[in-house]
């Protein structure tokens, strides 16, 4: 797949430039379900994207599914509750381990033994992340085996309609918003499997959910240290880069400790910060045209022109 990942678009709109750079002609399919009830407030997007758009209306379709298929809705909500619970327990475990890691980092004077301790802390955190991912993935697989969503008539009907729309376009654009809702709806209708040779333009939350895994982050929340956390696996339309939109608001790029930890924690994925209007292009595993984006490095520094680095798949 080829495409573009972008930062937020409220203050600096670069969607048109990204679509041009991706180079597909014709109308595009649009996903704005992350905006939830405001899904249809998309009137500005055709102008910004420079194309005719067809909104897939995944939020509205999802609401129709939940209203029409009560057993599915009940099981779906039960799974959401389970996911929320698992996330809370994971967060508790993570916070305790992170506190210990921070204490060790504060006490460290740079000896080899302390460096080993810090490495051990990072391994523990990465293990907790991976175990959480495995647990959530297992729950999702069990749910899909049990409920067979795509075989349910109401979902199958919507998928057929979605396939017709997607077959008529060469480009899929995914806006940001609530990432759990985005993931949920993209999965409910199996959108990935309805794509063929489509290109992707995804911004903010849209860029996050289309990667390998979705990481929630905010380093200056009203209270606490602001530890990032893994939500679950992404849709997997691109790989190798962990998009971190809106760093001005959410990251502390001036603090090497945080930058280094974030980078090492999610390696081998490259943590890439994307501020308003920044974007990067990808094509079949190669990343280029990193307009304004910033790479977080393992040594705690940040760098531009990072696509000179070959990203591993």
């Amino acid at each position, binding site marked *: 797949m080829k495409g573009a990942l972008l930062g937020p678009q409220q203050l600096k709109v670069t969607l048109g430039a990204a679509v041009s750079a991706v180079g597909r002609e014709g109308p595009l399919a649009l996903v704005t379900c992350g905006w939830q009830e405001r899904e249809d407030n998309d009137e500005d997007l055709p102008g910004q994207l420079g194309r005719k758009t067809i909104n897939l209306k995944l939020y509205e379709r999802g609401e129709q599914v939940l209203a029409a298929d009560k057993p599915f809705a009940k099981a779906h909500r039960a799974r959401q509750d389970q996911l929320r619970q698992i996330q809370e327990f994971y967060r508790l475990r993570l916070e305790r381990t992170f506190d210990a890691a921070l204490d060790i980092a504060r006490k460290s004077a740079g000896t080899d033994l302390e460096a080993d301790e810090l490495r051990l802390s990072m391994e523990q955190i990465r293990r907790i992340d991976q175990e959480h991912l495995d647990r959530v993935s297992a729950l999702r697989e069990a749910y899909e085996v049990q409920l067979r969503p795509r075989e349910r008539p109401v979902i199958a009907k919507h998928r057929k309609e979605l396939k017709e729309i997607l077959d008529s376009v060469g480009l899929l654009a995914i806006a*940001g918003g609530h990432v759990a809702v985005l993931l949920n709806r993209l999965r409910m209708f199996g959108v990935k499997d309805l794509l063929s040779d489509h290109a992707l333009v995804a911004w903010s939350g849209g860029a996050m959910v289309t990667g390998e895994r979705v990481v929630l982050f905010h380093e200056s929340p009203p209270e606490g240290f602001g530890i990032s956390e893994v939500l679950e696996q992404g849709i997997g339309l691109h790989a190798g880069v962990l998009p971190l939109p809106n760093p001005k608001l959410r990251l502390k790029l001036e603090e090497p400790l945080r930058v280094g930890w974030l980078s090492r924690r999610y390696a081998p994925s490259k943590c890439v910060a994307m501020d308003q209007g920044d974007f990067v292009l990808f094509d079949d595993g190669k990343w280029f045209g990193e307009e304004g984006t910033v790479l977080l490095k393992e040594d705690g520094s940040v760098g531009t022109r990072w696509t000179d680095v070959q990203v591993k798949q």
Partner: protein
Amino acid sequence: MTPELAIDKLKKGPHDAPAVEAFMNAHTFPLVEGGKVTFVFRGQVEAVHLKSWVYGLPNSQPLHHLKDTDLWHFTLDIPPKSRVEYKFEIVRNGNGQWIEDPLNPYRATDPFGANSVVHGEGYTIPEWTQVDPDARPGTLEPWVVKSKAFNDTRGFLVYLPARFRKTRRYPLLFVHDGPDYVRFANLKTVLDNLIHRLEIPDLVVALTGSPNRLGEYADDERHARYVTEEAIPDLEARLPLIGQPRGRCLMGASFGGVASLSTAVRYPGFYGRLLLQSGSFAFSDIGHQNKRGPAFEPVVKFMNRFRENPVLVADKAFISCGMHESLIYENRSLIPMLQTTELELKYVEARDGHNWENWRDRLREGLSWLFPGPLRMVYE
């Protein structure tokens, strides 16, 4: 070793006119040096006093005259991150006059006027209290409720978030002294910013006032009835509000804190959230006497009753108080009482006084704790 203060250097050396001018040109005032703050006044006067309202310090402290100059000075220990409001009293011809510090550009305003403000080392005005051009502003709509409790009509303003939609359901924040919160604590700007940053969800906020706050806010049964049986039902009938305890929060400072707590006590189970700032929670351990004046008499009776039988008044409460205000004693005393109930409580102290900027600076922590926003899940 503590570095020598600039004022001490001036005192030691020749302090002729050029030396004083050089000292004045080299610094801004009040002069903050670590935990020490030097207040300076220049003028032909008989005396100058520092007037402040810091609990534990004298209300009036004389500035020292630097011989053969028109410079007066006084150095005070002020811990890091403190905010202190003050005035100077200058004495001319035997008459005292209270003025703001002419050398200090920082002012804090309140319904009674303005004070000068000194910021201790490390204090900065929180950026989320200032207008953010990126944040979409909410609107203020006029609202009128007929009140049987007061046998009159009450008008107030209602804040609607920028993306208000009738198809959604919003929590309601009912604010006592709402217009003062907007004017002196930037509440509207704070709401716009915190909502924009997703640190709190979209909220509807009733910004109410009272024509007789010292009377009506002091555990007046009519006030509790007006709020709970008239104003809030009217708001819930005409606006898309959650309409359940978890979506109802009472908020207030000083006597507004008493009004919030006493209203919740009178209607247990109706309110789910409380935000109480520097509440005037006066009480007595013996009898009902108090040293604070007649306005506090009903408060003391109410608090004494509540202290005898602390009941669960909400699911969550955020309480803050300034360390520099005398009410710190009453607020600290309230916390263990509330902790005996199942109330989920967050209590915060700040090195500040009984003033609107103290209350402003705690809003982010209080509101986001009572109503956490979707900042971790939403990336637009």
